[in-house]
């Protein structure tokens, strides 16, 4: 490790870290917003599900590197435009989360639904106020996978020259110099860890009954959530 190099390059590294943060986070936020309505439709209308799942699976077979290079041609953007990275990662996030949202909504117990119906909830309000909060732990597990894999995928954009922590990898590789690469890897790991903790915290804040439910009678959704936590970021890709 060449500490003097790190010291001298600190402003650049910091800037690349900042770029990496928003390139990984923005696609998750947009992707989640898009996945909720699509996933809810797939959950409600069974016939929509197989084509959506197939489409999601196909999206995952496209190498990210290819998507980064092909998108400018489709969107009319410049090759170095970070928008391409955001769009590509949003596509992956949606592909991953649509399925998670639909599956998470499946785990909402029928008695909960019927109680909501009896209380006069209309479908959309029931989705927002009842189904989604109950499904939040499972959706959260999917968001964790999407976020962590995005942090790693963003780095690949360095191969086409979009600056972020991945630039340290190509730089170190070209200069036969390990320090920048190690700095980049540590930066990615720290970012993934911090984002993961933030999501776990957000899920906890959004589902206060989860902690109460564990002590007392365990409902089905509590059991599902616990399993989701044990499984960790579910292997929802496929």
């Amino acid at each position, binding site marked *: 490790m060449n500490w003097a190099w790190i010291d001298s390059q600190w402003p650049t590294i910091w800037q690349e870290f900042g770029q990496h943060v928003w390139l990984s986070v923005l696609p998750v936020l947009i992707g989640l917003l898009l996945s909720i309505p699509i996933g809810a439709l797939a959950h409600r209308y069974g016939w929509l599900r197989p084509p959506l799942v197939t489409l999601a699976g196909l999206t995952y077979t496209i190498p990210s590197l290819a998507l980064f290079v092909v998108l400018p041609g489709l969107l009319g953007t410049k090759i170095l435009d970070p928008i391409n990275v955001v769009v590509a990662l949003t596509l992956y996030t949606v592909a991953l989360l649509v399925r998670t949202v639909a599956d998470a909504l499946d785990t909402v117990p029928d008695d909960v639904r019927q109680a909501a119906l009896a209380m006069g909830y209309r479908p959309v309000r029931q989705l927002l106020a009842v189904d989604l909060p109950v499904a939040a732990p499972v959706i959260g597990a999917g968001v964790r996978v999407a976020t962590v894999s995005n942090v790693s995928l963003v780095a690949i954009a360095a191969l086409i020259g979009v600056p972020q*922590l991945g630039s340290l990898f190509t730089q170190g590789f070209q200069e036969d110099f390990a320090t920048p690469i190690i700095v980049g890897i540590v930066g990615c790991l720290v970012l993934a860890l911090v984002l993961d903790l933030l999501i776990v915290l957000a899920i906890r804040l959004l589902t206060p009954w989860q902690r109460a439910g564990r002590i007392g009678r365990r409902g089905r959704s509590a059991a599902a959530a616990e399993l989701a936590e044990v499984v960790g970021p579910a292997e929802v890709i496929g």
Partner: protein
Amino acid sequence: MNGVWTFLSDGANWVGPDGIWTRIAEHLQYSVLALLIAAVIALPLGALIGHTGKGITAAVGLANLLRALPSLGLLTLLVLWGLTIVQDNPDIPARWGLYVPSILVLVILGIPPILTNTYAGIGAVDPAVRDAASGLGMTGGQVLRKVELPVAAPLIFAGLRSAFLQIVATATILALVVTLGGLGRFILDGPKSPVNPYGIMAGGAVLVAVLAIVGDRVIAAIGYAAISPGLRSNGRPGNRRRRPALTTRNDPAALAEVQQ
């Protein structure tokens, strides 16, 4: 899209040392080898964790850590180290300095899905089934081999497919190391080509996708043959429920995977 067709339909592009067939063979060779090594590591580990119920927290941590490691960073770092090691030790074949790091990057990518799906699958086995097996006088190892692994097989195969998909898609970045080849070469070199740059690059992407889909179908077919008919979630139409088996009901991983 016309460019893609122009590239793929010209027979001359398919043959030769840098033709499409060579690149497919290289890509497939790295991917399959990495998947096998990942399975050899992750399957026994996942089975042990699922069977004993111990070390789940550690396994989740390990899987997440491996998942968070950026593949490109790992590749560049390991290749630099690999080249230094080869330089210092003339006994080691020079090619290994590039080959071993590249496979290692893909192996690390393949471990988390196989590991988590294996222990989640075994952990989701109905305790009554496990008790019945012990009641029949089976030893711990027999319960694992004859009951738990077969019952967990659908999830395990889902994990293998997930791992293969990620490995094949990520093997494109091996093209950064020029001599390794693979389909990533078309994606990286395409834009520099004087003729049909877009077609070559997008054609490379299409080939990776086709390879991933074909490989996925092959693993699914092996799984279909290996999984007991009573456990298949996508059997003959009308014969079975559309929903996955009860044991996987509350498991998001299982739900997501089994439905494909």
